[in-house]
């Protein structure tokens, strides 16, 4: 049975696209067939992060409108051969994507893949609601920062009301992926801690991705960080998160906080 997963957040720039690519690649590396789908019409980036920007011929809208078939539009990854990309179009017309069109594409993807991962655009408008509309599972990406947490709360509300699953009375499975986490700052009380965010949003934790240069390096070379920078803490965190999505009970490792003597003494107080 295919699983349709939406990676969403409300706020922009928190790491949805990075996470879509990294989780997709990590899942595909276990041999499962994975399609990552860019819903960010007009501002596509997933192709760039995946290093496939020069191979895009047809996109999601072409397939949704019936101008191309799925086989023509899917781009197979050059590194992991069970990983495919369906790019977004650069068109300015956001209304080009209809619910019926998306429904057809998702239904067809379900037949061919084990995982269909939808990279949501920012915001709570049409693009974001279409990306989550047919999902079975949601990964809510948040940064430990007030506006991101507030927007995630809004998105959780939408996941519980505006998805097909919610409308049919079922519970939407939701996971929190905390990204760009700086353990040092959290321990000094300069940034919300893992527990702060978990307490406030109260959905289960899928993983903690550290703020890291490795993510930037991977996007520079056009590779999902989970396969582009093997062995880095960010890659490991994404690989663990992907395994948890498959139901493997991987213990959660909190990012290490390097503390000086004073920090060790006072650090806990502030947290």
């Amino acid at each position: 049975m295919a699983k349709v997963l939406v990676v969403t957040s409300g706020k922009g720039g928190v790491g949805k696209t990075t996470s879509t690519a990294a989780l997709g690649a990590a899942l595909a590396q276990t041999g499962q067939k994975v399609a990552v789908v860019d819903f960010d019409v007009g501002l596509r980036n997933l192709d760039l992060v995946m290093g496939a920007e020069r191979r895009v011929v047809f996109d999601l809208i072409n397939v949704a409108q019936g101008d191309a078939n799925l086989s023509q539009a899917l781009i197979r990854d050059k590194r992991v051969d069970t990983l495919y990309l369906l790019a977004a179009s650069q068109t300015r017309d956001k209304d080009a994507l209809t619910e019926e069109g998306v429904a057809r594409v998702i239904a067809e993807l379900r037949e061919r893949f084990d995982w269909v991962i939808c990279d949501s655009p920012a915001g709570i408008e049409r693009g974001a609601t279409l990306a989550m509309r047919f999902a079975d599972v949601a990964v809510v990406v948040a940064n430990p920062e007030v506006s991101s947490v507030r927007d995630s709360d809004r998105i959780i509300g939408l996941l519980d009301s505006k998805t097909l699953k919610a409308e049919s009375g079922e519970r939407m499975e939701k996971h929190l992926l905390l990204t760009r986490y700086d353990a040092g700052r959290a321990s000094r009380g300069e940034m919300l801690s893992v527990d702060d965010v978990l307490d406030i949003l109260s959905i289960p934790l899928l993983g903690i991705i550290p703020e890291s240069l490795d993510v930037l390096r991977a996007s520079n070379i056009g590779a999902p960080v989970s396969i582009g920078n093997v062995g880095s803490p960010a890659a490991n965190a994404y690989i663990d998160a992907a395994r948890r999505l498959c139901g493997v009970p991987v213990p959660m490792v909190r990012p290490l906080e390097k503390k000086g003597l004073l920090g060790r003494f006072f650090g806990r107080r502030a947290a």
Partner: protein
Amino acid sequence: MNIFNFFRRGATAPLARERLQILLTHERQSSCSPQLIAMIHKEVLAAIAKHIAIDPDKVDIDIRHKDKVSLLEINLEIPASVSEAADKKAA
């Protein structure tokens, strides 16, 4: 301010956490529009002001949702002199 805050002026996360908790409890509950609350606020205030002199800032009106029902909560502070006078009359 306790001694730890003194040592750690960077510890702003607890405040962030508190503000978020208050804001989100409010946002999650407000299935009725803020305009509606504002309207009720104004009319209740006018009704009470006919009988008692009150400070509009000391009136708090909110709608809370509990399972299947909503509670309209009105909290207002009545100045001590007014309530004492009322007590004497009653006694």
